[in-house]
Protein backbone atom coordinates (compact mmCIF):
# COMPACT_ATOMS: atom_id res chain seq x y z
CA UNK A 1 0.00 0.00 0.00
CA UNK A 2 1.28 3.47 -0.90
CA UNK A 3 0.99 6.40 1.51
CA UNK A 4 2.49 9.84 1.87
CA UNK A 5 4.69 10.86 4.81
CA UNK A 6 4.37 14.65 5.15
CA UNK A 7 7.37 16.88 5.87
CA UNK A 8 6.59 20.57 5.27
CA UNK A 9 4.28 23.08 3.64
CA UNK A 10 5.85 25.73 1.41
CA UNK A 11 4.86 28.17 -1.30
CA UNK A 12 4.23 26.04 -4.39
CA UNK A 13 7.05 27.69 -6.35
CA UNK A 14 9.64 26.62 -3.78
CA UNK A 15 12.11 24.01 -4.98
CA UNK A 16 13.33 21.03 -3.00
CA UNK A 17 15.42 17.85 -3.11
CA UNK A 18 14.47 14.93 -5.34
CA UNK A 19 14.68 12.20 -2.73
CA UNK A 20 12.77 11.83 0.51
CA UNK A 21 13.37 9.60 3.52
CA UNK A 22 15.38 6.40 2.89
CA UNK A 23 15.97 7.57 -0.67
CA UNK A 24 12.30 7.18 -1.56
CA UNK A 25 10.68 9.59 -4.04
CA UNK A 26 9.79 13.04 -2.72
CA UNK A 27 6.83 14.87 -4.15
CA UNK A 28 5.37 18.35 -3.84
CA UNK A 29 1.58 18.18 -3.91
CA UNK A 30 0.27 21.59 -4.92
CA UNK A 31 -3.02 23.18 -3.92
CA UNK A 32 -3.72 26.87 -4.40
CA UNK A 33 -0.66 28.88 -3.42
CA UNK A 34 0.89 26.09 -1.39
CA UNK A 35 2.71 22.82 -1.77
CA UNK A 36 2.94 19.93 0.66
CA UNK A 37 6.23 18.02 0.53
CA UNK A 38 5.90 14.32 1.23
CA UNK A 39 7.82 11.09 0.81
CA UNK A 40 5.98 8.49 -1.24
CA UNK A 41 5.94 5.43 1.01
CA UNK A 42 5.36 1.88 -0.17
CA UNK A 43 4.82 -0.77 2.46
CA UNK A 44 4.37 -0.70 6.21
CA UNK A 45 4.25 2.78 7.80
CA UNK A 46 6.81 2.03 10.49
CA UNK A 47 9.39 4.67 11.24
CA UNK A 48 12.74 4.66 13.00
CA UNK A 49 14.68 7.16 15.06
CA UNK A 50 16.90 7.75 12.03
CA UNK A 51 13.78 8.56 9.99
CA UNK A 52 12.90 11.31 12.49
CA UNK A 53 16.25 12.97 11.95
CA UNK A 54 16.09 12.43 8.19
CA UNK A 55 12.73 14.25 8.31
CA UNK A 56 14.47 17.10 10.16
CA UNK A 57 17.27 17.26 7.56
CA UNK A 58 14.69 17.41 4.79
CA UNK A 59 12.64 20.12 6.50
CA UNK A 60 15.81 22.14 7.07
CA UNK A 61 16.66 21.99 3.35
CA UNK A 62 13.12 23.06 2.44
CA UNK A 63 13.23 25.93 4.94
CA UNK A 64 16.54 27.08 3.46
CA UNK A 65 14.89 27.16 0.03
CA UNK A 66 12.06 29.47 1.14
CA UNK A 67 9.40 30.10 3.78
CA UNK A 68 8.07 26.85 5.16
CA UNK A 69 5.93 25.29 7.86
CA UNK A 70 7.38 22.13 9.39
CA UNK A 71 4.81 19.33 9.68
CA UNK A 72 4.84 17.12 12.77
CA UNK A 73 6.92 13.98 12.22
CA UNK A 74 4.78 10.90 11.63
CA UNK A 75 1.97 12.61 9.69
CA UNK A 76 0.51 10.28 7.06
CA UNK A 77 -1.85 10.98 4.19
CA UNK A 78 -3.58 8.34 2.10
CA UNK A 79 -2.73 9.89 -1.26
CA UNK A 80 -2.16 13.14 -3.18
CA UNK A 81 -5.88 13.89 -3.30
CA UNK A 82 -6.14 13.69 0.49
CA UNK A 83 -3.14 16.02 0.76
CA UNK A 84 -4.74 18.48 -1.67
CA UNK A 85 -8.02 18.47 0.23
CA UNK A 86 -6.23 19.07 3.54
CA UNK A 87 -4.26 21.98 2.07
CA UNK A 88 -7.35 23.51 0.50
CA UNK A 89 -9.36 23.24 3.72
CA UNK A 90 -6.84 25.37 5.65
CA UNK A 91 -5.37 27.37 2.76
CA UNK A 92 -5.79 30.84 4.29
CA UNK A 93 -4.38 29.88 7.67
CA UNK A 94 -1.42 28.05 6.17
CA UNK A 95 -0.62 30.93 3.83
CA UNK A 96 -0.73 33.40 6.74
CA UNK A 97 1.53 31.13 8.82
CA UNK A 98 4.03 30.64 5.98
CA UNK A 99 4.21 34.41 5.58
CA UNK A 100 4.51 35.01 9.31
CA UNK A 101 7.32 32.51 9.84
CA UNK A 102 8.99 33.40 6.52
CA UNK A 103 12.71 32.66 6.85
CA UNK A 104 12.75 32.53 10.63
CA UNK A 105 14.53 29.93 12.71
CA UNK A 106 14.16 28.45 16.18
CA UNK A 107 16.77 28.49 18.93
CA UNK A 108 16.19 26.07 21.80
CA UNK A 109 17.24 26.79 25.38
CA UNK A 110 16.99 23.92 27.85
CA UNK A 111 17.86 24.31 31.53
CA UNK A 112 18.53 21.14 33.53
CA UNK A 113 18.45 21.14 37.32
CA UNK A 114 21.88 20.53 38.79
CA UNK A 115 20.25 18.80 41.77
CA UNK A 116 17.40 16.99 40.04
CA UNK A 117 15.50 14.67 42.40
CA UNK A 118 16.09 11.01 41.75
CA UNK A 119 12.98 9.40 40.28
CA UNK A 120 11.66 6.59 42.45
CA UNK A 121 11.33 3.12 41.05
CA UNK A 122 7.96 1.63 40.34
CA UNK A 123 7.98 -0.86 43.17
CA UNK A 124 8.78 -0.76 46.89
CA UNK A 125 10.37 -3.50 48.94
CA UNK A 126 7.78 -2.73 51.63
CA UNK A 127 4.51 -1.03 50.71
CA UNK A 128 4.30 2.42 52.42
CA UNK A 129 1.46 3.14 54.85
CA UNK A 130 -1.34 5.44 53.68
CA UNK A 131 -0.09 8.29 55.84
CA UNK A 132 3.51 7.89 54.69
CA UNK A 133 2.31 7.86 51.10
CA UNK A 134 0.30 11.07 51.55
CA UNK A 135 3.18 12.83 53.29
CA UNK A 136 5.55 11.80 50.56
CA UNK A 137 3.15 13.02 47.90
CA UNK A 138 2.61 16.36 49.70
CA UNK A 139 6.37 16.91 49.95
CA UNK A 140 6.85 16.03 46.29
CA UNK A 141 4.09 18.47 45.27
CA UNK A 142 5.66 21.27 47.33
CA UNK A 143 9.00 20.71 45.60
CA UNK A 144 7.27 20.64 42.23
CA UNK A 145 5.44 23.94 42.88
CA UNK A 146 8.65 25.60 44.02
CA UNK A 147 10.54 24.35 41.00
CA UNK A 148 7.79 25.41 38.63
CA UNK A 149 7.94 28.95 40.03
CA UNK A 150 11.71 28.92 39.61
CA UNK A 151 11.32 27.70 36.03
CA UNK A 152 8.90 30.54 35.28
CA UNK A 153 11.35 33.02 36.82
CA UNK A 154 14.15 31.65 34.61
CA UNK A 155 11.91 32.12 31.56
CA UNK A 156 11.08 35.73 32.49
CA UNK A 157 14.74 36.50 33.16
CA UNK A 158 15.90 35.06 29.84
CA UNK A 159 13.19 36.87 27.88
CA UNK A 160 14.18 40.14 29.55
CA UNK A 161 17.93 39.60 29.13
CA UNK A 162 17.54 38.73 25.47
CA UNK A 163 14.97 41.49 24.82
CA UNK A 164 12.95 39.24 22.54
CA UNK A 165 9.38 39.98 21.50
CA UNK A 166 6.85 37.99 23.54
CA UNK A 167 5.36 36.65 20.31
CA UNK A 168 8.73 35.13 19.48
CA UNK A 169 9.06 33.08 22.67
CA UNK A 170 7.49 29.80 23.77
CA UNK A 171 8.34 28.05 26.99
CA UNK A 172 7.37 25.22 29.28
CA UNK A 173 8.46 25.04 32.91
CA UNK A 174 9.47 21.71 34.43
CA UNK A 175 8.33 19.43 31.57
CA UNK A 176 10.10 16.60 33.40
CA UNK A 177 11.82 16.05 36.75
CA UNK A 178 15.24 16.94 35.41
CA UNK A 179 14.31 19.82 33.11
CA UNK A 180 13.70 23.24 34.68
CA UNK A 181 12.82 25.03 31.48
CA UNK A 182 12.35 24.25 27.81
CA UNK A 183 12.29 27.49 25.83
CA UNK A 184 12.11 28.26 22.12
CA UNK A 185 13.14 31.59 20.60
CA UNK A 186 12.36 32.78 17.11
CA UNK A 187 14.87 34.78 15.07
CA UNK A 188 15.44 35.76 11.45
CA UNK A 189 17.79 33.39 9.62
CA UNK A 190 20.57 35.98 9.58
CA UNK A 191 20.19 36.81 13.27
CA UNK A 192 19.79 33.27 14.59
CA UNK A 193 23.45 32.58 15.33
CA UNK A 194 23.85 35.89 17.14
CA UNK A 195 20.74 35.17 19.23
CA UNK A 196 22.10 31.71 20.02
CA UNK A 197 25.38 33.23 21.24
CA UNK A 198 23.52 35.73 23.45
CA UNK A 199 21.23 33.02 24.79
CA UNK A 200 24.24 30.85 25.65
CA UNK A 201 25.73 33.67 27.73
CA UNK A 202 22.42 34.59 29.40
CA UNK A 203 21.43 31.00 30.22
CA UNK A 204 24.94 30.17 31.40
CA UNK A 205 24.71 32.92 34.00
CA UNK A 206 21.73 31.30 35.77
CA UNK A 207 22.73 29.52 38.97
CA UNK A 208 21.60 26.03 39.85
CA UNK A 209 21.03 24.79 36.32
CA UNK A 210 23.00 23.42 33.38
CA UNK A 211 22.16 25.25 30.16
CA UNK A 212 22.09 23.65 26.73
CA UNK A 213 21.42 25.97 23.79
CA UNK A 214 20.69 24.39 20.40
CA UNK A 215 19.69 25.28 16.87
CA UNK A 216 19.08 27.11 14.65
CA UNK A 217 16.30 24.75 13.55
CA UNK A 218 13.16 25.14 11.48
CA UNK A 219 10.45 26.86 13.58
CA UNK A 220 8.82 23.67 14.93
CA UNK A 221 7.52 25.32 18.11
CA UNK A 222 5.81 28.29 16.46
CA UNK A 223 2.98 26.57 14.64
CA UNK A 224 0.69 26.07 17.64
CA UNK A 225 -2.26 27.99 16.20
CA UNK A 226 -2.22 25.40 13.45
CA UNK A 227 -2.91 22.58 15.83
CA UNK A 228 0.33 21.62 17.55
CA UNK A 229 -1.32 22.30 20.89
CA UNK A 230 1.78 23.42 22.76
CA UNK A 231 3.65 26.61 23.39
Amino acid at each position, binding site marked *: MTRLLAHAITRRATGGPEAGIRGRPLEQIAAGELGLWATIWDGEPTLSRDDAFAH*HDLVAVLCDAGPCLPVRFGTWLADAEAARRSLEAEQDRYVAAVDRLADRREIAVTLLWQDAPRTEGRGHAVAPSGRAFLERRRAANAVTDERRKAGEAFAARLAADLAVDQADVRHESCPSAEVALSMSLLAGRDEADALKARATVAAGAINGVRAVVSGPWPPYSFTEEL*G*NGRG
Partner: protein
Amino acid sequence: MTGPLAALPDEELSVLDLADRLLNRGVVITGEATISVAGVDLIYLGLNVILAATESIAQLEARKK
Protein backbone atom coordinates in the same frame (compact mmCIF):
# COMPACT_ATOMS: atom_id res chain seq x y z
CA MET B 1 22.81 16.30 39.15
CA THR B 2 21.48 12.81 39.82
CA GLY B 3 19.17 11.91 36.93
CA PRO B 4 19.92 10.01 33.75
CA LEU B 5 20.42 13.18 31.71
CA ALA B 6 23.35 14.25 33.87
CA ALA B 7 25.81 11.92 32.18
CA LEU B 8 24.96 13.03 28.67
CA PRO B 9 27.14 15.55 26.80
CA ASP B 10 25.56 18.74 25.49
CA GLU B 11 25.54 17.38 21.93
CA GLU B 12 23.37 14.41 22.89
CA LEU B 13 21.04 16.63 24.91
CA SER B 14 20.61 18.82 21.84
CA VAL B 15 19.65 15.75 19.83
CA LEU B 16 17.05 14.83 22.46
CA ASP B 17 15.73 18.37 22.45
CA LEU B 18 15.35 18.23 18.68
CA ALA B 19 13.60 14.85 18.89
CA ASP B 20 11.06 16.33 21.31
CA ARG B 21 10.23 19.01 18.79
CA LEU B 22 9.97 16.61 15.88
CA LEU B 23 7.51 14.42 17.79
CA ASN B 24 5.48 17.01 19.67
CA ARG B 25 5.47 20.15 17.58
CA GLY B 26 5.05 21.26 14.01
CA VAL B 27 1.85 21.66 12.05
CA VAL B 28 -0.82 19.08 12.67
CA ILE B 29 -2.56 18.78 9.33
CA THR B 30 -6.29 18.73 9.75
CA GLY B 31 -8.67 16.74 7.63
CA GLU B 32 -7.51 13.42 6.30
CA ALA B 33 -4.08 13.11 7.86
CA THR B 34 -3.21 10.72 10.67
CA ILE B 35 -0.24 10.87 13.02
CA SER B 36 1.55 7.65 13.82
CA VAL B 37 5.11 6.88 14.74
CA ALA B 38 4.47 3.20 15.33
CA GLY B 39 7.68 1.27 15.18
CA VAL B 40 9.95 4.13 16.27
CA ASP B 41 12.49 2.96 18.80
CA LEU B 42 11.94 5.31 21.74
CA ILE B 43 15.33 4.74 23.34
CA TYR B 44 16.98 8.14 23.64
CA LEU B 45 14.37 9.68 21.40
CA GLY B 46 13.62 12.77 23.44
CA LEU B 47 14.06 14.54 26.76
CA ASN B 48 10.49 13.88 27.79
CA VAL B 49 10.72 10.15 27.27
CA ILE B 50 14.16 9.69 28.73
CA LEU B 51 12.87 8.05 31.92
CA ALA B 52 10.96 5.43 30.01
CA ALA B 53 13.95 5.04 27.77
CA THR B 54 16.25 4.54 30.71
CA GLU B 55 13.96 1.85 32.07
CA SER B 56 14.05 0.16 28.71
CA ILE B 57 17.83 0.26 28.68
CA ALA B 58 17.94 -1.16 32.21
CA GLN B 59 15.58 -3.95 31.17
CA LEU B 60 17.69 -4.73 28.10
CA GLU B 61 20.84 -4.85 30.20
CA ALA B 62 19.15 -7.05 32.80
CA ARG B 63 18.08 -9.46 30.08
CA LYS B 64 21.65 -9.71 28.78
CA LYS B 65 22.96 -10.86 32.20
